[in-house]
């Protein structure tokens, strides 16, 4: 017997490995079967009874998520019988659902809401009072739990048991009194808690970080890559484009990199993108100047210097294209290769790994930066807690490409103070810290959300970033700045 089975779904033939379920086959065939409790990243529970399909030869409808596909099976997902079943299944799911969609953050991306719009009964026949349960419970630093909205799909319980293995959650009581909750004196406090809000098909778990901030239908998503660590999780970045305000990140499935999840540290990667957290215009000795004047100042400073009088300090938080652009522009201007340093935080343990996704190397593009430097035949000097190597070369101009994600640099202030002591220290970055204010020249740069480019993760997987419109239109990426500097130095010389 072969290890492949062929079945037909809505008269469409599909071949899947033996042991697959009808749901797997439907996913492969591109047929959407409505479901609540089934999640591709978790085990099968079969509790919501919503993914009912008609299998020819079986007297009753079967659940697609837990029925193995077999050879020659004929499955139907669109007949009136199936639709009628979905309608009634929803009616039963909604017996005790509070229908407080107007104040529920999930509204707009709620499975219950979406399916109800498609196949709902609209006229409920339930006469009894709803069972009332606790609302707005504090179940950890990141989440709020509303047990009334819960439809007991058990996704969150399985996530805690299988992915993080923390087992904080359980279903208590029976029947219509059944309630999801944390065990006594335990709170959800691992680094993957926001995934619970994501996988919750209704609004039972909502994220404190996003709670009441914005309705989801105002948000537009961009497919990009998380810059929080060297794993490079695939994410959707959500922006309210009318306000030019970023609100959150959510994981995007990529089996090779992050699977279905991302960590809570990565979820904060929208905070530094908004205007209030950023430098708006270049500052020369504390005075606000135009970008053109700032670049002119850089061009004047580097013009006529020999290559070894210019030091370039890199952090691994820029794209491959930016490194290549900066290096080639500087090479043309200086007619040689500048001294290149790589700045790592002194507390960094680059090989740390939490066993799920989060890595100790808090730079998204360490691999890519090293590759680019190798291409340019540059052997960089490491600056990690000890800055004597930089001071020893006594450069005339020091260009620092600062970290975009400052959380990965706990000793940032100390390091920045050291850099700013150098002669003509130029800082490219959006830092608003006190230490950054001491630099001779500070130039704001584009963030990961505003540029197209490539990050190479710890595993050598190159991934593309996708650009949103910039928050500040005058702000450019470092390679664009240096191309400009190259032109200015050329015309002046």
């Amino acid at each position, binding site marked *: 017997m072969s290890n492949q089975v062929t079945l037909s779904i809505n008269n469409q033939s599909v071949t899947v490995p033996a042991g697959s379920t009808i749901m797997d086959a439907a996913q492969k065939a591109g047929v959407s079967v409505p479901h609540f409790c089934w999640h591709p990243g978790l085990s099968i529970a079969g509790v919501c009874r919503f993914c009912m399909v008609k299998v020819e030869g079986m007297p009753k409808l079967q659940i697609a998520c837990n029925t193995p596909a077999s050879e020659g099976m004929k499955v139907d997902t669109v007949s009136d019988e199936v639709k009628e079943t979905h309608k009634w299944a929803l009616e039963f799911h909604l017996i005790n659902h509070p229908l407080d969609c*107007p104040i529920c953050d999930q509204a707009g991306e709620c499975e219950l809401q979406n399916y109800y719009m498609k196949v709902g009964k609209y006229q409920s026949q339930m006469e009894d009072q709803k069972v009332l349960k*606790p609302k707005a419970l504090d179940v950890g630093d990141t989440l709020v739990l509303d047990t009334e909205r819960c439809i007991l799909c058990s996704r969150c319980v399985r996530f805690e048991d299988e992915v993080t293995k923390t087992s904080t959650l359980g279903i208590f009581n029976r029947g219509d009194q059944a309630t999801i909750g944390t065990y006594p004196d335990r709170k959800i406090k691992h680094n993957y808690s926001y995934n619970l809000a994501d996988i919750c098909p209704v609004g039972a778990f909502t994220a404190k970080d996003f*709670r009441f901030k914005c309705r989801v239908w105002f948000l537009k998503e961009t497919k990009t890559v998380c810059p929080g660590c060297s794993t490079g999780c695939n994410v959707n970045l959500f922006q309210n484009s009318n306000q030019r305000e970023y609100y959150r990140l959510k994981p995007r499935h990529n089996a090779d990199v992050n699977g279905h999840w991302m960590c809570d540290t990565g979820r904060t990667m929208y905070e530094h993108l908004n205007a209030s957290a950023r430098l708006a215009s270049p500052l020369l000795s504390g005075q606000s100047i135009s970008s053109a004047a700032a670049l002119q100042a850089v061009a004047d400073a580097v013009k006529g210097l020999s290559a070894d009088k210019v030091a370039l300090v890199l952090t691994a938080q820029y794209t491959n294209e930016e490194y290549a652009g900066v290096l080639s522009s500087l090479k043309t201007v200086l007619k040689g290769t500048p001294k290149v340093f790589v700045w790592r935080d002194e507390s960094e343990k680059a090989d740390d790994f939490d066993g799920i996704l989060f890595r100790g190397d808090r730079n998204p593009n360490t691999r890519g930066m090293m590759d680019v430097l190798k291409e340019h035949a540059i052997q960089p000097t490491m600056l990690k807690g000890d800055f004597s190597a930089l001071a020893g070369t006594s450069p005339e101009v020091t260009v620092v490409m600062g970290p975009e994600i400052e959380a990965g640099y706990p000793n940032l202030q100390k390091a920045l103070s050291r850099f700013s002591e150098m002669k003509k220290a130029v800082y490219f970055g959006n830092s608003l810290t006190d230490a950054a204010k001491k630099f001779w020249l500070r130039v704001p740069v584009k963030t990961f959300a505003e540029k197209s480019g490539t990050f190479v993760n710890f595993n050598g997987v190159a991934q593309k970033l996708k650009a949103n419109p910039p928050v500040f239109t005058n702000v450019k990426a470092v390679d664009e700045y240096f191309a400009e500097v190259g032109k200015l130095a050329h015309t002046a010389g």
Partner: protein
Amino acid sequence: MAYVNVSRDPERNFKNGYLATSLLGLGTTLVTFTKQVFGLEESNTVQWPEVEYQYSDRFKGAHFLTKRPDGRVRCTACFLCATNCPAQCITIVAGESPDKGVEKYPVRFEIDILRCVFCGYCEEACPVDAIRLGPEYSMAGLAERKWVYTKDYLLERDAVKRKVGEKQTSKKDENVKHDSVDSSLPNIHIGGSDGH
């Protein structure tokens, strides 16, 4: 092919001309004026602002926010009015209410009245009868006036109190909240519970 000559109005004659029609109109005005001066006919003109015109109860004038019976704002900051607004004149900032039975309330609720087109879609969209277009129609003012109506203004202004009065408190049923909404953990952990 047949042509119609439109360069000259076939009806044109002295009776339809400028002078005759102007005099005719003036005549009508004089006749009506005279009748009204001698009290033979009642005038339709309202002497605003001394006399206020009474529009119907369904008139869509300046907005106001309704209240709960205890006097707090009725709005739950669901953003449906802001979503539905074709002029995008409603700005809401939502916050966590200290009352867990309410949960969400508007910290800020602002209407840019200069952008508003008085379509009433906000009223239509509201699921809790929190925003209404009131009877107030006289909204003119000078440039230095605050043209963005704040939450306080929408709730508490005198014109609304005078014209709407008691009706500002919405009688719409509220969701009944369980006592346990104030508990910090599911009720299963409090005291000995049945089941489990």
